[in-house]
Every structure is written in C-alpha cells, then in structure tokens.
C-alpha cells in the first residue's frame, strides 16, 4: 500500500499508545491553563473583585458560611434584605455554589493556606472552567474519540459563549453549573452505553449537586427523559437504558428533594412530570419485554397493546386530573415564558425587564461561538451518520438548546457545550480524513482499513467506520448521489490522493482555528471582562482611568450612616448595597419570590411625584434613596434609562395611578429636556437625577450625555428630600428623606419659608463655571 508521506515503521504499538496518552495529558493540562488564563483579564485589568449584581449576594452568603459554619448559614435569616420582610436565606437559595467555595476554603485552611475567601470566590469560575473542559473531553470521547475530545475541550475552554458567564469574579451559579451539566451528561451517556448502575448513580449524584447549584437543573431533568423516550420510540429500548434511567431517576429525584429550596417540586410541578412519565413508561415497556420473553407472540400482542394503552391512558388522565386538582403546579412563569414568548412581557414585567432575558440576535451567536456556529450542523449530520444512542442525545440536545438560546440570551450558555462537542466532532473527522496517510488504490479497501488499524493512535475513528452498519453506507451513498451529480462508482476505496490536497485542507483548518483563538481573546478582553462595579475609561494620554463611583458611594454609606439606615434603590442595586454598604435595602435582585408588589411599591415611589412618594417612603422607614445617574459621564446603564420598567411594574399594580403613556411626550417620544411630559418632570426619579445638575454647567446649557438632550436652565427642586451625597462623577446620588416638620407644616411650605429666610440673609450663590470632568 502507498502512503502520502513516509511513516516511521519501527514503532511498537505500546510506544504509540503511551506517547499518545502522555500527549493527551499534556494537552489537557495546557487546555486547562489556557481556560483559566483567558478568564483573568478582569483581575489583571482591574483587580480581584466580585462582578455585577447577583455575585455580590453569593459572595456575602459565602462569607457567612465561611465565617460561621454551615449550620449557621443554613439557618441564616437575613433581616436586611426585603426590609421589613427579611429573607430566610437557607431556604431560598441554591446552596451548591456557596457550599463549594466553603469546602475549598476550609480545605485550604486545614493545610494552613490562609487564602482570603474573596479570592476563592473570584477564582472559582475559572477553576471550574478547567474542570468543564475536562468533562467535555470525556463526553466527546464517548461521541467520537480522544482527538475530538481534545478539540472539544479546547473549544469550550476558550469559547466566549461560556467565558461570558465564567470570567474571574463573576461568582454566579453558572460558574459551576456548566461543569456539573456536562459531567452529569457524561455519566448518563456512560451509564447508557455500559448499562452500569454505578454510572447511573454517579449521574444521579452529580444531578443532585446540579440541583443544589443552579435553577437550570430543569434542563437535565427534561433532557434525559426526552432522550430515553426518543430511544424507545426508535425501538432502541434495552436493559442498559432501563438500568441507567431507573438508577438515575430514582436516586436523583430523591436526593434532589433534599435541597430545601426544591423540596417537593419534583413530584408537584409540571417541569418534573416528564421525567416521571418516562419513568413509568419505561416500567411498562420493560414489563412488555419481560412478557415477550415468556409468552407466545399472539398473546403477547394482545397483552402488550392492552396493557400499554391502558397504562398510558391512566397515566395521562391521572396527570391531567392532578393538575386540575392543583396537586401538580402548572409551569412556572420563567419556564412558561420559554414557550409562550409573549407571556413574560405581558404578565411578569420583572422577568421581561432583565436584559439577559431578551431574545438573541444572530450577531451575538456569532460573537459567542464564531466558527463553531457553522461547524455545529456539520457535526450534527455526522452524528446522524453513525446513529448510536449517545449521538441521539447530542442531536436532541442541539435542537432544544438552539431553540432556547434563540429565546433568551442567557441560555446561550446551555447551547455552548453541545456546539463545542458537535463542531469538535466535525472538525476532528475532517482532520482525521486528511491526516490519514494511506492513499486509496483500486479495490483493496480491506487492506486500507487494516493499515488504518496499525496507526490507531492517530485515527482510531477508522475502526468505527470499519464496523459501520451497511445502512449508513447506503444512506451515505444516496447523499453522494445527491451531492455530486455524478453517480460514484461502487468501488469504495476511500481516502485522499496526493500531499497538496492534504496540505491545503490542513492549512486552511489551522488558519481557521487560529482565527478562532484571536477572536476569542478579543471578545473576552473587550466584551466580557469588565466588572460593572468599576468602570474604566482612558485618559487623553491613553492610560487607563478607573471610575469608581459605585464603591465610593457605597463605602460612604457604610462609614457615615447609622448601621440600620434603610436604603431604597431600584432592585438592581439591592445586592450591591447589601454587600458593599452593608445596609438594609427595600428590594434586591432576588426577584424569584412574587414580591412583585414590593418592587412595584418602589417603582411607584420613584415614578410618582414627591407628595405622593413621601408617605410611601415614610411608611417603609426609608432613610436614604439612591439613584444611578449617568448623564454627566454618559453612563448609559442608569436609572433614567430603566425608568420605564419602574413605571410599567408600578402600573401593573396601580393601573389607575401610574400610566406609562403619561411619561412620554404627546408625540410619543421619551424625553427628559424641557419638552418632557409633566408626569416625567414631577417624578421623584427625574428630580433626584437632575437635582442641581444644570447648575454644574453654570451659564452654558447643561447636556445630558446619555440622552443627548440639553436640560432646562432651572433644574428641579426637592422639598421632601435632601441631597446627602453625590459621587465624584455624579453616577451615584444619595438623598436623605426628611423627617416630618417639627411645627407640623407640610415640608413644602416649611421649605419655602426657610428658602425665603435664607434669601434675605445671604445672597444666592450665583454664576458657576462648568467643572471639567
């Protein structure tokens, strides 16, 4: 036989395999290093700090866990959240994340490594991303082979779609969830292939961990049953399937019910009913199989039909009945909004208002997955080519996940692993084909295959090709005819002639891969590595300038206000205030409980006039009100831009007091300058944002750099609030709520009186110059 390029002949098979495994280990090590390193941009550019909003709560909870131990954490009642309700943290949180870092913390300290808990929290996500790479490797290995596995590991190690949720400092449930997801799936596949109860149990254990860690566990809860169901429909029921599924479901469900936050949901809510149903169906089918082995086919047919139909009917009706009797809760809003996409906006504006619940436009797909996004269908096709049970899993996963990712940006995260896997399959089979040195010659296919057998280490996939069922080849045959107009000769000597052909494809492939690396680095560095708590701008001389207003204001609150001062802000900032300023907050990011009315109250206070808002503030003993204002700096994520959501949410509860249209100009524009509607101008939010803003510009007219609108010369005045603190770039503004006037006057007139007195005493401060910022 001829080879395209000379091969060393004096290598024993053991040498080859050992070298291969050593190389694999080294490669995995390097991949992990790359995965961790590429997530450290935030730490290097800024500092080791917790990012964004939710992580601040996780961090706070973890500190409690680390300092006071697990039981204290378990029974922790946090009086500062949702003032005055408070929050039973132990029962309303997925403890997996905190428990993980707590364990790591205690482990390190047991070895006298006094690592700060903050650093553990910050670096948890990168660390787990390395594990994810490994899990993906194992998973893909089951799909194709080691080489594909390594590719997949490399992909998921650096793909932005995953980095976006796992940079150092984004200490959120997803940080560990994706590893658990992939490893659970790996265990499931392994269990399915080997039919071992051990792996089934492992899958259950990791499923439990996942349940404890992330609300997204429902994805596994439905993914695995769907897979099992499809296999049954394809007539692929086997004892392996039975063992794997039953061991997973039984143990997994029971253990998942141990998480207080989940409790009895696995038997009470619709999200989990699919798994139960498939479990039942499996029993029926297994019973049918058993019966078949004992009965003659005639009786069997009757028995089977009767029993299956009967049980099926009973099951369905039972389910429906239970749902109507209210024993089984229907789909919860968040899940339901995945199917009826208009649902959230109409009925749960709080969910709809979150930016990461918006649908995904194609650029973000490309941004997050780049070349994987179009390799992915090819991989799916290849999975169809040799349709083993695990391939069915990948196929289903790809369909479901791509739908979800389309509906919600944040679910891109669940799509990413399968994309990495299947595109790795596609890519590695391409490379396999073109690295394989054997040249086809005439009819000797068998020899070619055996020769493939020799250099197994390089291309083990050939073996599978060799024992590929005839069906797929014939099927393949008809794509051949479909694809290339000419009908290929029946002589299946497959392979590539010549070196140049190999070269061009390989070079092309390598080029694309390196482009991918550049892309990922750029996206990670520019899009996903800023901890939204600290903003960075560049000085004229190009050096980096840190804008630290949030921490400035929070720290001021922490140092110079009474310990029990209640701070009201829009719910986005609740966790940060609790974490950094250590003060009670009215509402925070924990919106899962239908504290809708509570949030709506804040929304109403913000969007209604001072006179209306003041009683609300006093009733909730609010001492300070905090607003985010970007107008001076051009920081677009400020409260005025979020204002409409406050209005909408308030309108949902008080439709006759707050109406969204009143906040637009008659022409339906959203303006803040002198053409703004009166409701807008009188709203507390508007007043607090622009209080004394115009004066900053002295004579020249004040410019809101976010809305790009010039503000009126005379700014709004406040009668019921005092400006207490404003951060350096005016991003955070804190106002103190006045106590009732001692003389019993309403504060407006009292204020007017005081103003009059002051005017007589001292001439009003006049003509300021603009301060360059």
């Amino acid at each position, binding site marked *: 036989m001829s080879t395209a390029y000379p091969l060393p002949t004096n290598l024993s098979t053991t040498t080859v395999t050992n070298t291969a495994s050593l190389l694999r280990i080294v490669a995995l090590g390097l991949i992990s290093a790359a995965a961790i390193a590429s997530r450290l941009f935030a730490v290097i550019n800024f500092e080791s700090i917790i990012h964004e909003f939710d992580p601040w709560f996780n961090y706070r909870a973890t500190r409690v866990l680390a300092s006071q131990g697990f039981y204290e954490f378990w029974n922790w009642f946090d009086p500062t959240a949702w003032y005055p309700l408070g929050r039973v943290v132990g029962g309303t949180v997925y403890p997996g994340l905190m428990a993980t870092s707590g364990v790591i913390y205690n482990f390190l300290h047991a070895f*006298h490594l*006094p690592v700060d808990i903050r650093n553990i929290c910050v670096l948890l996500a990168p660390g787990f991303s390395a594990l994810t790479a490994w899990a993906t490797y194992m998973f893909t290995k089951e799909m194709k082979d080691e080489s594909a596995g390594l590719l997949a590991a490399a992909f998921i190690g650096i793909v932005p779609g995953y980095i976006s949720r796992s940079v150092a400092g984004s200490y959120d449930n997803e940080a560990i969830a994706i590893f658990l997801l992939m490893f659970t799936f790996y265990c499931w596949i392994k269990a399915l292939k080997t039919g071992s109860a051990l792996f089934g149990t492992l899958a259950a254990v990791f499923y439990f961990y996942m349940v404890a860690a992330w609300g997204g566990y429902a994805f596994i809860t439905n993914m695995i049953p769907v897979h099992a169901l499809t296999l049954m429909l394809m007539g692929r029921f086997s004892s392996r399937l039975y063992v794997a599924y039953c061991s997973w479901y039984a143990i997994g469900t029971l253990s998942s019910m141990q998480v207080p936050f989940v409790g009895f949901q696995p038997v009470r809510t619709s999200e989990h009913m699919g798994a139960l149903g498939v479990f039942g169906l499996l029993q029926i089918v297994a019973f049918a199989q058993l019966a078949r082995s004992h009965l003659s086919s005639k009786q069997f047919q009757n028995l089977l039909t009767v029993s299956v139909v009967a049980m099926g009917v009973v099951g369905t009706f039972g389910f429906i009945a239970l749902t109507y009797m209210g024993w089984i809760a229907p789909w919860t809003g968040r899940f339901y909004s995945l199917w009826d996409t208009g649902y959230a906006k109409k009925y749960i504006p709080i969910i709809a208002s979150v930016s990461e619940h918006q649908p995904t436009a194609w650029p973000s797909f490309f941004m997050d997955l780049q070349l994987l996004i179009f390799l992915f269908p090819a991989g799916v096709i290849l999975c169809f080519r040799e349709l083993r049970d695990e391939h069915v899993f990948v196929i289903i996963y790809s369909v479901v996940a791509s739908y979800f990712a389309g509906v919600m940006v944040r679910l891109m995260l669940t799509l990413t692993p399968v994309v990495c896997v299947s595109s790795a399959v596609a890519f590695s089979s391409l490379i396999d084909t073109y690295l394989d040195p054997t040249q086809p010659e005439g009819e000797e296919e068998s020899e070619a295959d055996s020769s493939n057998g020799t250099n197994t280490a390089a291309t083990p996939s050939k073996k599978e090709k060799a024992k590929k069922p005839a069906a797929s080849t014939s099927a393949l045959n008809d794509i051949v005819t479909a694809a290339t107009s000419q009908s290929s000769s029946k002589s299946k000597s497959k392979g590539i002639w010549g070196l140049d052909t190999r070269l061009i494809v390989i070079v092309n492939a390598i080029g694309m891969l390196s482009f991918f690396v550049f892309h990922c680095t750029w996206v990670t560095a520019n899009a996903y590595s800023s901890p939204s708590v600290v903003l960075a701008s560049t000085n004229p001389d190009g050096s980096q300038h840190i804008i630290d207003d949030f921490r400035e204001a929070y720290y001021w609150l922490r140092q110079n206000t009474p310990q029990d001062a209640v701070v009201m802000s829009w719910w986005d900032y609740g966790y940060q205030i609790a974490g950094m300023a250590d003060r009670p907050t009215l509402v925070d990011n924990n919106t899962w409980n239908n504290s809708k009315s509570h949030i709506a109250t804040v929304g109403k206070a913000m969007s209604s006039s001072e006179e209306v808002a003041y009683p609300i503030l006093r009733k909730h003993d609010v001492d300070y009100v905090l607003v985010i204002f970007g107008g001076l700096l051009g920081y677009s994520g400020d409260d005025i831009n979020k204002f409409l959501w406050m209005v909408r949410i308030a309108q949902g509860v008080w439709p006759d007091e707050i109406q969204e249209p009143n906040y637009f100009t008659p022409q339906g524009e959203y303006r803040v300058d002198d053409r703004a509607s009166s409701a807008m101008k009188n709203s507390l939010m508007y007043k607090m944002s622009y209080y004394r803003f115009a004066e900053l510009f002295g004579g020249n007219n004040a410019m809101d750099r976010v809305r790009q609108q010039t503000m009126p010369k005379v700014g709004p005045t406040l009668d019921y609030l005092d400006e207490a603190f404003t951060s350096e770039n005016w991003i955070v503004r804190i106002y103190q709520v006045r106590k009732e006037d001692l003389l019993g006057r309403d504060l407006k007139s009292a204020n007017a009186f005081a103003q009059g007195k002051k005017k007589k005493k001292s001439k009003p401060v006049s003509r300021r110059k603009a301060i360059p910022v």
Partner: protein
Amino acid sequence: MLQCWRALTLFLLVSAASVFAASSLSFENSAIVRTVDLGGSLVHVTTTFAAKALEPKASAYTITLPEDEIQRTSWLEVKIKGQQQPLTVKYGGAPADGKFYNLDVQLPNPVEVDSTVNIVLETIQTHATYPWPERAAQQDEQSLKYNTTLFVLSPYKTNVQRTKVKSPSPEVRSYTTPKDVDAFTLESPVTKSGATITYGPYNNLPVSATNEWVTKNQQLIGIHYKYDYPVLELTQVKRVAEISHWGANLNIQDDIVLYNAGPELKGHFSRLEHQTQSFYKRAAAHVIPALSLHLPAGIHDVYYYDLVGNVSTSRLRAAPSVPKNSRSNQYSVMELRPRYPLLGGWNYTFTLGWDSPLADSASYDASTGKYIVQVPIMTDVPGSVVNECEVKIILPEGATDVEHVLPFPAVSTEESTHITYLDTLGRPVITFKYKNLTTKHAKPIYVSYKVPSSAHLRKPVAVATALLGLFVFGMFARRVDLTLHKKTA
C-alpha cells in the same frame, strides 16, 4: 487614678531608681516663660524655668503640672537649655488632695548657690483643642478653642512668669482677659500682638503649688482662633510587621481608622459645592481631600485598599533603598486619597501596606548569632494624633529567645503565635499596645531573635513530604485493580 497612672507611664522616660528629696527652699525661679504653639490635634507647650539655686549641691528640681494637663500630655521631655541629652524625670506623686502632680528632675551636675540653670520642659498635648462652633457648613471656615490655666505652678517662689500663646493664624476670634491679677502685675494682664497673645509678665509669685493658692488665684484662660488645616485623628492604627527570611522581606501593613475631628458637617454634603471650591482652589479648611505620608525608603509593592477592595486613587514616589543606619533622611512619599473627601465628623477606614527588603532594617550579629530587626512603631501622619495603636511583630517560624527594646514603655505587651502559609508550628508574635501617639513617638522598636537553620528547612521539607506522599499514593492507586471479574478482552 489608675487611668492616670497608665497615661503617665507613657511619657515617663526611663526612670532612674534614685530617690530625690525636693524641698521648697532649694531653688527659686527667677523667670518662667511658657510658650504654647496652638495647632489642630497637637499643641506644643515649651516651658523654660530659669532656676536659681538657694542652697549648695541642689541637684533635684521639681516641676508641677496640674491634673488636667497631665491627662492630655502625651509626651514630655526635660532638658538643660542648650543641651541635647534629656534629663531623667521621676514621677514625684501628688501632694495630699492636690489637683497637681510633681515631676522630680535629676539635674546632671549640682548647681552652686546663686547660679542659675535653665530647665526646658517640652510637652505635646493631644485632644487639647475642640472645634467651636461645633458644627460648620461646607463652605464655612473652621475655628478651634484651647483652654489652659493662667499661672504656671511651681513649688518655688517665682520672680516673674509669662505665658505666650501663639495662634497659627493672626485671626484670633477671642481670648479671655484674666481678672483681679493686680496683685501680680501693674500693666494690662494680657497683650495681643499679631498672632501672639502674651499673658503677663506677672511678678513675685509665692510658692504656688499649694491648694489654697490655686483655689485663690488660679484661673482658666481660653483662646478661640481660626485654624486653616483639617484636624486629623487616627482613631485606631493596627500595624502588623511580618518578617520573612525566605523572602528576605519585611512586610508592614497598617489598618487605619481615619476621623476628621474638625467641626461636624452642618446640613449635607453637596458635590457641586465641593467641585466648585476645588475648581477655584479654595477648598474648605476642614475638608480632608488627601493625605501624604512619608514611608521608608526602598519599599515596593505598596497596596492601599479598604473593605470593598482596591482604592485606585493613590500615587507613590518611591525612594531607592538606603543602607542601614546611614543618616540619610530619604523617604518615599505616598499620596493617597480616600474614596470620598472627608468632611467634618466623617470616618474612613483603609489598609495600607508595603514590602521592604529585610536587609534595610535587619542585621545579623555573628557574635551572639542573633538577628536584630528594627520596626517603626508608626508612620507619621503630620499633625495628627493616634488614639490607639497596636503593633504586632511576626517573627519567622521557629525563632527562639526573642528580646525587644522599646523607645518608650507600652501600655501592654503580649506574646502569642500566628499560623500562616504552610506553617507547621506557627510563628512567634509580640504585640505592643499604645495610646495617644504623636509625631515624637515615631521611633523604631528593636527585636532580636535566633533562628536555627533547622527551622529554615522545616517548611520545604514539610511540603516536599506532602507532595511525595501524594505521588506515591497515586502510583499505587494507579496500579491497583479493583474490577470484580476480569474481562477477557
């Protein structure tokens, strides 16, 4: 009373054991001049006694201070005018039911009859001034009040005494005019010229350190003056100095609670006002926008953070490291801005730390085989007082026979152990506590200890064994086969 004792032990210099016999006849003061340099949180008081000996071989002179002054004095020193060497002072105890205390000064050489010796008493008072009015709005100016007694007491007769009060700015809002002092002076009892207010001269004072005289004549005087600099107060400073021989590194870290002791902010803070003021370069006197600290030379890796993370607004001008005990007064300048400008009555806490090469501050004494390390008690924040200071010195693991020398006695000293990175036994720690420290107290503590070379090796050995054990375990675990029934593949 105990409280008073502790306060007192602070500023007694190393006291000789010798006992004096002070009699009211041994001296007479031909002149007493007291100069009070008013400041923010620190007030320098210098009193010069021109003492004329009345009897031969008079070598013990007694200085009397009223109680409240003792309470607020954080440092004192007695010298013969024109000499460097401070004299030994002994706390002579209070006369029965006296409101004042005696300090017995041991003169270096006995004074002949009728010859005069000039004794200079220099003290620094803390918490002696208070803002008046107590609350000031953002653009108001700040003025302080200082109270003291009119007469300098003395157990001897005094021919003439006067008190000069120097205000930092000529704008003295008000000062008390002492009443019925005609017995001692003929012209006006107080005169003001520029920023200086002079009480006296008062002539022919009898022995004044007696209760009846005090109750009869002594009276309080107060000065109300404008002060143009913020009144700084470091409520608490916790210093941790960690010595690492492996890293040849001395790490010093201060946890500081900063407090603006000026008049409390009236009303609210307006960023607009603040930016306007700083734009027109007329920032209010009682606002602390930034601090500039003098850190030792040759430091590196300076970090400045607080409870919510790194503070990016600081600049360091590091000076190159200088050889030990060379008298060059080089230092690195650290300019740090708090997250927010510190207005009257506001707090700010932060942590400041740095590394410095151990060689700069440590030396090895071959003869005794001991290392000697010097650790400064505090970093001087100019014009500020440190209410409570805790210095914790962490010696390398396995350090033995630890000794230390203090520049002045601590309130309390305790020893403990501290376990950190990969320690097996933990490191010896000495902790000193101080109160009311001022610029004068920024002196080094000397610690000497032995470290056997075995102690040096302990850590690497421990780590190596741990890893080795891991690998060995891995080696075996890899090769053990636990499958129940072998597959015949």
